[in-house]
């Protein structure tokens, strides 16, 4: 009896160790088994790397389509499927359907289609995309466009609980994939073009109760920033750092939304993510640094308290949202082993930071066309803005021309991949520049609050190098801050990359090609034209000993309008036959998942 009690107590103690919950260990175990693809990034570090090597650089040329699945939904299909054991879970854009598919026979085990107010659609800037699901504790977490966060039974699809994370009537919507960490599901909010005050929220996976909510802007009790302990480049941020670089109450409609990807370091217990643009796009009316928009946050998972922050683009003047993924890797920087966070920002700089302390290690341009800043000052972390490209200095009602990159960034949300085998980061990028003219707008709740006009065009028009392509797929050395190789693509590369232990890197193109390239050289080894343009992420898993590669095609998203890019044709400086027309020539709408494997 006593022995048994002792044993029970020991187990209870093990389970009760602070910071370890059963959901966490279950998910960590699932993620460490490469047969699964259990979260958006494959792992908490967001590497999008798989240890599977059945498909490799020698045989990838033999790849074939194994099976396909139509989602029955048009519009832009971002994100990718999850695979847990024998089941694949895939999502769609609005109306945010979820399908659980039996990998043994590709039959549908269950489906879930929420009823959502169609009035949500027009509040969503840039299409009704949704970047995917999260798994944990036997549940599938769906974050609907109308901001309802829903927990579904992973076996049956039955709803277990549902909470509302925002108000579409005030312009809040949802597009991001949540993540499950320990007993929490972490999610953010979209609506930076509607004056939403961005935040990251943690809900309890058991009942959906709110555990903490850390705003991007506002007083310390809202931002969960400790004025003495939270640091920016090693220095405490001081009191109310989330309000004192804003005029008056502007922080309340200050943006800094959080619609990107979230990573987590279990050893440090920190969750990493970036915040979006300050509202409005007219910088003249919001003097100051507009903290903490455009910022990388490291928050303690248990309390939500910010450990460190780094603002990449103080006082944004170009809509360079800082929401792109944070990839956690252990690499050598200047000869020293470092625990780093690597981030390819919309603003065109590739950042390498020490993820323990937030120290800035590297900040270099990952597209040579980037011109709005000469460099990042490594002492202050501030980009050195070129006056001629400052839309603020040029002022309201003045058209600032030839800024690179365009508002959609040198890269948007499409996540990069990291291969520990090559030590390289594989980055899908845009090669697009813009003219930008800010003007005065009035704020009305639930209404777009933009305040600038944009024209976008191929970067070649600014660099004058005679090119007119709109994207590149690059390999990046995050230690040196240098491009190792770069593959030009006709259109922006808007799909999430995948790197594997077979030394193959996969990505999709807007024309609809799935491509496989050699991880070391970038040499193209395989391509296949899927039914529609690809803005989804390429994921991989293994079932019954066979490795599969899966990707959603379904053109749309900002890529679907970004491609218009001032290229109707006739008047384009490069004489390009309108890129948008060209895209229209290659592909049409329609969501389909295509799954590839080697022949038997």
């Amino acid at each position, binding site marked *: 009896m006593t022995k048994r009690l002792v044993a029970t107590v020991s187990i209870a103690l093990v389970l009760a160790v602070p910071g370890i919950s059963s959901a966490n260990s279950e998910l960590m175990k699932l993620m460490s088994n490469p047969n699964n693809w259990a979260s958006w990034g494959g792992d908490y570090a967001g590497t999008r790397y798989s240890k599977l090597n059945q498909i490799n650089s020698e045989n990838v040329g033999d790849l074939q389509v194994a099976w396909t699945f139509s989602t029955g939904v048009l519009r832009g299909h971002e994100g990718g499927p999850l695979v847990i054991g024998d089941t694949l879970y895939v999502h769609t854009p609005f109306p945010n359907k979820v399908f659980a598919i039996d990998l043994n026979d590709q039959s549908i085990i269950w489906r879930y289609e929420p009823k959502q107010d*169609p009035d949500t659609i027009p509040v969503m800037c840039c*299409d009704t995309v949704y970047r995917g699901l999260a798994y944990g504790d036997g549940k599938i977490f769906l974050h609907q466009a109308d901001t309802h966060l829903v927990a579904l039974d992973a076996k049956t699809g039955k709803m277990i609980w549902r909470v509302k994370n925002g108000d579409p009537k005030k312009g809040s919507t949802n597009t991001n994939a949540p993540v499950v960490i320990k007993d929490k599901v972490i999610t953010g909010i979209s609506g930076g073009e509607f004056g939403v005050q961005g935040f990251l929220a943690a809900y309890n996976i058991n009942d959906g109760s709110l555990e903490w909510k850390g705003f991007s802007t506002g007083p310390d009790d809202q931002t969960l920033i400790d004025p003495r302990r939270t640091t920016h480049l090693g220095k405490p941020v001081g009191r109310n750092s989330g309000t004192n670089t804003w005029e008056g109450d502007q922080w309340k409609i200050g943006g800094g939304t959080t619609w990107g990807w979230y990573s987590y370091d279990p050893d440090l217990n920190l969750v990493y993510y970036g915040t979006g643009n300050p509202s409005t796009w007219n910088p003249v009316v919001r003097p100051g640094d507009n903290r903490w928009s455009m910022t990388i946050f490291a928050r303690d998972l248990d309390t939500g308290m910010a450990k460190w922050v780094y603002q990449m683009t103080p006082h944004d003047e170009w809509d360079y949202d800082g929401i792109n993924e944070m990839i956690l890797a252990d690499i050598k920087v200047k000869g020293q082993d470092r625990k780093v966070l690597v981030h390819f920002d919309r603003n065109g700089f590739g950042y390498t930071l020490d993820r323990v302390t937030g120290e800035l290690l590297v900040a270099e341009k990952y597209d040579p066309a980037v011109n709005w800043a000469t460099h990042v000052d490594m002492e202050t972390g501030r980009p050195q803005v070129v006056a001629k490209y400052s839309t603020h200095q040029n002022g309201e009602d003045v058209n600032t021309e030839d800024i690179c990159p365009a508002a959609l960034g040198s890269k948007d949300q499409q996540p990069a991949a990291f291969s520990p085998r090559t030590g390289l980061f594989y980055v899908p990028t845009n090669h697009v520049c813009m003219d930008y003219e800010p*003007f005065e707008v009035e704020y*009305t709740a*639930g209404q777009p609050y933009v305040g600038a006009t*944009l024209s976008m065009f191929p970067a070649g028009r600014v660099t004058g190098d005679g090119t007119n392509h709109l994207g590149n797929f690059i390999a990046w050395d995050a230690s040196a801050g240098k491009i190792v190789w770069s593959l030009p693509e006709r259109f922006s590369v808007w799909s999430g990359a995948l790197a594997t232990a077979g030394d193959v890197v996969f990505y999709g193109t807007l024309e609809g090609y799935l491509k496989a390239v050699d991880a070391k050289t970038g040499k193209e080894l395989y391509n296949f034209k899927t039914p529609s343009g690809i803005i989804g992420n390429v994921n991989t898993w293994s079932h019954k000993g066979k490795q599969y590669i899966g990707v959603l095609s379904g053109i749309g998203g900002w890529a679907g*309008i970004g491609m*218009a890019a001032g*290229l*109707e044709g006739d008047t384009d400086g490069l004489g390009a036959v309108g890129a948008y027309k060209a895209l229209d020539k290659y592909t049409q709408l329609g969501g389909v998942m295509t799954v590839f494997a080697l022949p038997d």
Partner: protein
Amino acid sequence: MRYRTVSRTAKPPSIHTMLIAVPLLLVACAKVQTQDSEPGSAGSAAAETTAGASTSTDPTSTSGISAPYTVECGQVDDDGESFCYVDRDTYVGWRTYHGFCHVCHAQDAVGSTFAPSLLGRMQETDMTRDLFVDRLANGFTGQMGVMPPWKENPNVSKRYNELYSYLMARSDGVLPPGRPKRFPNPD
């Protein structure tokens, strides 16, 4: 220099009219397009004049109802890039469009994967000015998507006329893609 004045009723021209008008418009290298929406005026498209000095027509002088647009293309800026001069309404319409509408309907109104090109839509016979304003103010559910109501947004609800001018100038094939400039002396 060669100028063209196109008159018609408030309704857009028939497709037949456009087929005649557009190719002619495209060959003129420098031109002024003034589109009258005076009710009851002749619907024929190609009343052509070759005029001397004046390049701009006061859009409100004839009827008190805003004429859709006045456009003069073929200008060249200091960098050697060509551009068009437009009247105030068309310019403000361009700016409003690219501050709001372009998020779905794309730059230059060419349409995206989830919202139609307005170049064709503005030319369809049912697209009267009244319907245009109604669609902007009250929104509607289309085949592919949802047009939001804009009447609550002062940045747009004050600009229906200007948006109409800009979109007609675009859809008539008179104003090419890109950023227009206002006439140097709007008065």
